[in-house]
């Protein structure tokens, strides 16, 4: 045991360091894991960590640490913590923090900083972390004394989790970590944090229901906000009682089970044809916990041309940001749904439902090759059939991500975890590690591409160390597939910098870092081998060769209208 570290809760009036205080305050917040990498400017934190009950996960790159913490946060809804040192440690974290901002994830990034006397002198590994984190966090702090930690740490958790969640970052100079203070627990006044919205007004609910009542062809547009508000069951009651079909945003996949009769699947750039066509006809869109992202709406002026909009969101600045609503409620979507559900009367909409069924039949989502293991939809469907509903799914970014979003049968919230807003290649593996750390008994599938996987492949060593149930499936086209697709469709097939001249033996790379690996194209009985790899405990990398000519269809051109979908030829 380390002399300088505490071995239990600090006693009132005992003398402890800022770093010890930090660790104690994290424990008080219920932190169980911290992912990170030590360095010169956060040595005192790591010194204090050894006598804590908090388990440290040593990532191999700070971006990996950030995504491991994100994976834990995304799958649980709790705030999770990552550590990095100053300078390059902090800059390496930036991508994971920015990603958390775009998708409203409660990530707590704690960085070491050079001592305050050195700040501003261009000291070794000094960087303006406060300035870097400022535009990509919900709020951030530079802590100037150990005393301040007593306020900043609980406040940071509250900010990260309250209202619309989001990342926060806390930069702690080394002298603050070393500063000795007389420990006195401090009770924090939680009124310090602004309420995200005022109390719900019953009139708002009545008004919203009256608008819905007057609509003939209403649609619900349901997003990640419903998941973050824990309101999926309330949404289901609301949709079923009012008999309103629902389109799901990318972040909202899983709010309604794929099989639910009112679920119309994903809208937007790679949405099903009928889903986008229903939106052409509807006369009312009720946006619930959505932010009308351009990947969902396509060209905004052509989005739902016959519809009026009702918008419910906890973030007031989202209301009327992209589309002008005829009515809006600034509130927690869960509160709104629960209040509304108290006064609902059963409605049926046989004509509208029939019309939608017809569109579904005439313009279905075509999953070409879904019976062939070596084609994208086939691989995804086969793998989904080999695991049960309990499996959690994450992806990297590219074609494989969209194929999974389209074809995987999601049945529950927080089952689907993917980088929506920032679209970060390299997201998948470390996030999968975090998901599995938070829920070790559940199998975590990470669908990746050979391009994305290279961006955080070093975390395979972390995965081996933690020995988690993570199964990485690489849909390997030896290309930056989604870029190749865009060049094919929109740049006259002028393929530029999308083919890898040097391929990677991912099975061998996995083995070199202590993870099982196989190339499914090279084994005798691939179905049998695949089943075995998915079902046995422990990590696997499964490399599945696919053709580089595979495309994600339909596709709406970036900036184009959702009605102008490009469809592939039947194969």
């Amino acid at each position, binding site marked *: 045991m380390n002399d300088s570290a505490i071995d239990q809760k600090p006693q009132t009036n005992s003398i402890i360091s800022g770093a010890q205080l930090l660790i104690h305050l994290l424990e008080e917040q219920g932190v169980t894991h911290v992912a990170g990498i030590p360095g010169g400017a956060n040595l005192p934190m790591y010194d204090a960590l050894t006598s804590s009950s908090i388990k440290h996960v040593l990532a191999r790159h700070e971006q990996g640490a950030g995504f491991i913490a994100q994976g834990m946060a995304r799958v649980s809804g709790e705030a999770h913590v990552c550590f990095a040192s100053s300078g390059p440690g902090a800059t390496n974290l930036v991508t994971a923090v920015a990603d958390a901002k775009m998708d409203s994830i409660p990530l707590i990034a704690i960085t070491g900083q050079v001592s305050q006397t050195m700040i501003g002198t261009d000291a070794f590994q000094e960087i303006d972390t406060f300035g870097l984190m400022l*535009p990509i966090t919900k709020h951030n702090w530079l802590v100037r004394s150990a005393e301040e930690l007593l306020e900043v740490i609980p406040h940071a958790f509250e*900010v990260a989790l309250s209202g619309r969640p989001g990342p926060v970052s806390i930069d702690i100079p080394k002298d603050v970590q070393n500063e000795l203070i007389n420990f006195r627990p401090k009770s924090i006044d939680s009124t310090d944090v602004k309420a995200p919205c005022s109390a719900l007004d019953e009139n708002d609910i009545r008004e919203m229901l009256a608008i819905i009542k007057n609509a003939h062809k209403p649609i619900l547009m349901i997003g990640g906000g419903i998941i973050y508000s824990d309101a999926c069951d309330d949404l289901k009651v609301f949709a079923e009682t009012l008999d309103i079909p629902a389109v799901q945003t990318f972040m909202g996949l899983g709010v309604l089970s794929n099989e639910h009769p009112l679920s119309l699947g994903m809208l937007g750039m790679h949405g099903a044809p009928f889903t986008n066509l229903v939106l052409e006809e509807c006369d009312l869109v009720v946006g619930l916990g959505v932010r009308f992202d351009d990947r969902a709406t396509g060209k905004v002026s052509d989005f739902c041309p016959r519809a009026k909009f009702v918008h419910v969101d906890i973030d007031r*600045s989202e209301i009327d940001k992209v589309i002008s609503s005829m009515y809006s409620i600034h509130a927690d979507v869960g509160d709104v749904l629960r209040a509304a559900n108290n006064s609902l009367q059963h409605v049926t909409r046989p004509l509208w439902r029939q019309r939608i069924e017809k569109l579904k039949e005439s313009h279905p989502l075509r999953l070409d090759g879904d019976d062939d293991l070596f084609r994208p939809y086939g691989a995804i469907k086969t793998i989904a059939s080999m695991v049960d509903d309990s499996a959690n799914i994450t992806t990297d970014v590219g074609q494989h991500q969209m194929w999974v979003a389209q074809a995987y049968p999601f049945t529950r919230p927080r089952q689907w975890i993917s980088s929506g807003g920032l679209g970060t290649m390299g997201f998948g593996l470390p996030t999968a590690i975090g998901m599995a750390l938070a829920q070790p008994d559940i199998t975590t599938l990470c669908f990746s591409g050979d391009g994305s996987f290279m961006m955080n492949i070093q975390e395979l060593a972390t995965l081996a160390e933690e020995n988690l149930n993570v199964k990485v499936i690489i849909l390997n086209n030896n290309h930056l597939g989604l870029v190749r697709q865009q060049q094919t469709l929109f740049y006259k097939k002028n393929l530029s910098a999308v083919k890898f001249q040097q391929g990677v033996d991912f099975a061998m790379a996995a083995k070199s870092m202590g993870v099982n690996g196989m190339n499914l194209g090279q084994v005798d009985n691939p179905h049998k081998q695949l089943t075995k790899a998915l079902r046995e405990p422990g990590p696997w990398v499964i490399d599945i060769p696919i053709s580089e000519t595979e495309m994600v269809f339909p596709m709406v051109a970036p900036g184009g209208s959702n009605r102008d979908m490009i469809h592939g030829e039947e194969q």
Partner: protein
Amino acid sequence: MSNENQSLLKLIVNNHPGVLSHICGLFARRSYNLEGVMIRPIAGSSSHKSCVWLLVNEVEKLPQLIRQTEKLIDVITVEQHDMKESIFEKTEQFFI
């Protein structure tokens, strides 16, 4: 100096180091036009609050700008004020 595209905002903020960075950072990040800033601690306030006057050059984005500013953790209130007799009018002679 009156310009009909300009608006005047009065913010009460926590007098934390970094609060002005958060305001200016927001304006830079969302490309809102900021024409003038005046900030002073609120006189005699023991509660560590500051008052910030902002002269902004936005018409269409103004409601959005106000909502985004209100979201900043250290911003307590945002009010829109009349340009007439404003601090920027009164101090015009210092900016020539």
